[in-house]
């Protein structure tokens, strides 16, 4: 792609679930659980099932929630792109994932900054830059995370 596709929003991580709320370019919510992915648009009140029992989404959820182990991943220490931080590089072991996915890199940066870089087989990169905040979950967030 000549132009990166950029979206902004909040990642809410709770246990084994991730709620990805985008604010731009449009408002939407994606809920990742270890069994399924759900979607809710700004006009909808309820989540709709997008994908069920997908190994790729299970893998993304594991990366984003930190629920991974060396049985499924080849873990190694790497350096961040600007060599300022140590990162954890994860290579999938499952042949099914290897076919579509190359690596995930998790980096801890200063000032509560965190980076997740996902690279697929076509070398498309998904870079998630996060500012860690420790806000209390709102009742709406809690409700969303509890779906279905």
């Amino acid at each position, binding site marked *: 792609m000549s132009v990166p596709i950029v*979206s902004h929003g909040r990642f809410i991580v709770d246990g084994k679930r991730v709620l990805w709320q985008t604010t731009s370019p*449009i408002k939407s919510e994606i809920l990742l659980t270890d069994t399924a992915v759900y*979607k809710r648009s700004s006009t909808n009140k309820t989540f709709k099932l997008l994908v069920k029992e997908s190994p790729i989404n299970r893998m993304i959820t594991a990366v984003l929630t930190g629920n991974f182990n060396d049985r499924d991943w080849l873990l190694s220490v790497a350096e961040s792109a600007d060599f300022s931080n140590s990162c954890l590089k994860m290579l999938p072991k499952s042949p099914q994932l290897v076919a*579509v996915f190359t690596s995930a890199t998790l980096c801890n940066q200063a000032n509560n900054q965190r980076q997740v870089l996902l690279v697929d087989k076509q070398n498309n990169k998904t870079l998630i830059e996060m500012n860690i905040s420790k806000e209390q979950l709102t009742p709406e967030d809690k409700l969303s995370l509890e779906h279905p």
Partner: protein
Amino acid sequence: LNILEWSPKTKALLWFSQCLVILVMLVLSYLVNPIVVNSDISRLFKSQGHSDINTVNNQIAQQAVKSQILLVGNTDKSHAIADSKLLAAQLLSLNEIAHVKSTYDNLPTINRIVLQYLPYRQWLLSDKYKRLLESKQPDKLFEHQFTLLNQMVDPNVSLTLEADLTLSLADYLSRSYLPTNTLVLENGSLIAQHNNKYYVLVVFESNASGLDINESQKVVTAIKQLLPTHQSEVLYTGSIFYASEASSTGQFEMSLFGTVSILIMLLLVWWGYRHVSSLLATLSIIVISVLYGMCALVIAFDEISIVALIFSITLIGISADYSFHSLSEIFFTRCMPKNPLKEVHRSLSMGFLTTAAGYLVLLFSPFILFQQIALFTIVGLAGAYLTAVLLFPWLIANKVVNTPPLPPFIIWLNNQHRKLTNYESTHYIVLITVIVVAIAFGLFKGFNDDVRSFYNVTSNIQVNERKVKDILGQKDEPQYILITGTTAQVVLEREEELTMMLDQHVKYNNLAHYKGITQWLPSIKKQKFNAQLMVNAQANGMFDKTKMLLGQATPILRPDIKSSQYLTLPVWLESPLGRLFKNQIMNVNNKYYSIVRLSGLNNVTAIKASLIDFEESYMVNKVDDISQQITQFRELLANVLLIALVAAWVVFALRFGLKIASIAILIPTVSIVLSLAVSVFIQGELDIFNMVASILILALGLDYSVYYAEHGFEKTITITTLMSALSSIAVFAILLLSSMPSIQSFGLTVFIGVIFVFILAPQVTKWQKAHA
């Protein structure tokens, strides 16, 4: 030309000649078309028909019959894989197994599927995408596209985005329709995870198309011998396992019932006639009747059901009747040595005709099982009749020097029977019948025509099947929808219309899922329509936001969107995904048939009702269809019984007068009603086999009436009817031990019916006296 007047020697010569012809025919037909005894219980009630639809349905059933599934399970994945490969190699070494598959290297991966569809991008739209285009609301379409982009590392998006900025193909491929999502491909093995165990799939196909009893047993025995050599748990399912069980049960029951029946028959004969020649005669009549029956089956059918053979054992009991009639006449009367059976010839003939007429009804039934039972019995009885009439005068008459006295028990029984008949027993009979029928009517739970209830399957096979289905997540129903058309495109267009209707049923929870070809291959008509929809959408600015997000200035649609290189059936069927669907479309006699498989059916009636509006589309449910045919046949059988009674009444009236004819008809009628009533007491509900049993009771009842009407209440007739009744009772009572409910039902009703027929039959003589 009166054969009866011929000398015993000439008759015997005639008998030997015709017997030789039959034996030669049997050997020749066996050599030309070796007999295949089929133990596939799913085909017990296979209805015969030669329409294309029947051919297609049989082909579909055949595919299911050939394919067998094994799952090798272990908590250690590598052990499960190693064991599955070892098992596959062991299976392959068996001669009876044609194909074994434990590795699946050619299964379509997401990458291969995406590459296969890429040339056809923008002609394939999901229903949702189509609705969004038609809604003319660019924001909604953009939101959908953004959701796709927002799903990280989605290969459907990453592999298609460059070629298709509309994301329509990514969306089309993201629908969760891909089969076998519980099975994961790993190093070529398909593995399912269930309760902390890894199960590796092994599929094999048996060599022959049918399920021969020997073949299925050999295969299953060999497999079961292999299983303990593996540490892993091995689950199995498939028709061969059911067939093997049916064949071992069938063979056991057939040999047990056959042997016991013959032994009882010979004991009865020895007790009644006490002469070696009587044993020889009875044995010869049984052997000949079985040979004749087999000859007819081998000539008329390609394969014989083992259940039909178990039923056919009853022939032993019926054919022996001819021996008893002849023996009683020869042993206990002063018959002419030259023509010893002259006096009983008429009753023998009438007996044969009435029984044959009863079974003839079954011969015209729409079910192979009944056709085989009927043909075997009719031809077998013809053999028995010819043996009695032509062979016995030569075989026995000259060899009986001293007539043995009648056994004292027969004399006593005859006296008791006389007393029962002489009393004003008619009132009691009527009273008892009314009471029994009234109680039975109160207990009657209706008719059970469900074909699945006619045979028992051991819980082990069922547990295995349930577990395999659970692990593989299979919820497929036996029902499917068959769509026909003159060309592949016509069929696809019809299927598309039909699946729109099915979508509504899924929405209302009448159905969980369905699987059809058009979910992955739209008709060319639809592809053209989609292309036009995309062109219109671009003209209406539907893709503007997407273009902006992706920073594209160039047109978003492919330049050749209006070309004619659409995705066609032959091309698709050769693709990695299409190959998986090859069994879902067929071409039979230049007509195309596509199959829509259904799963999680909650409301069949609603779907059937909707189908009425669709051209050339049929709901196929073999089990329901057969059960429905059984209901129709059962109703027809009841009418035939009535007609047979009227016909017999007319024949009897012409020969014996109205009164005797009426009593002669009442005897089997009352016996049938009482035996059905007793069957209701025991079974609660009746089935087709109880009704079929009624035909036999009618035939036997008329037989006995003829003997009494012809000969009066003589001791010789008592011994004949007693022997006949005891032999029938024994043979049909043995059937109660069968593990198959169908055989039990039949045995029970005939067993009870014969008792009543025996008790009631002398009533004819009472009226005969009154008449005289």
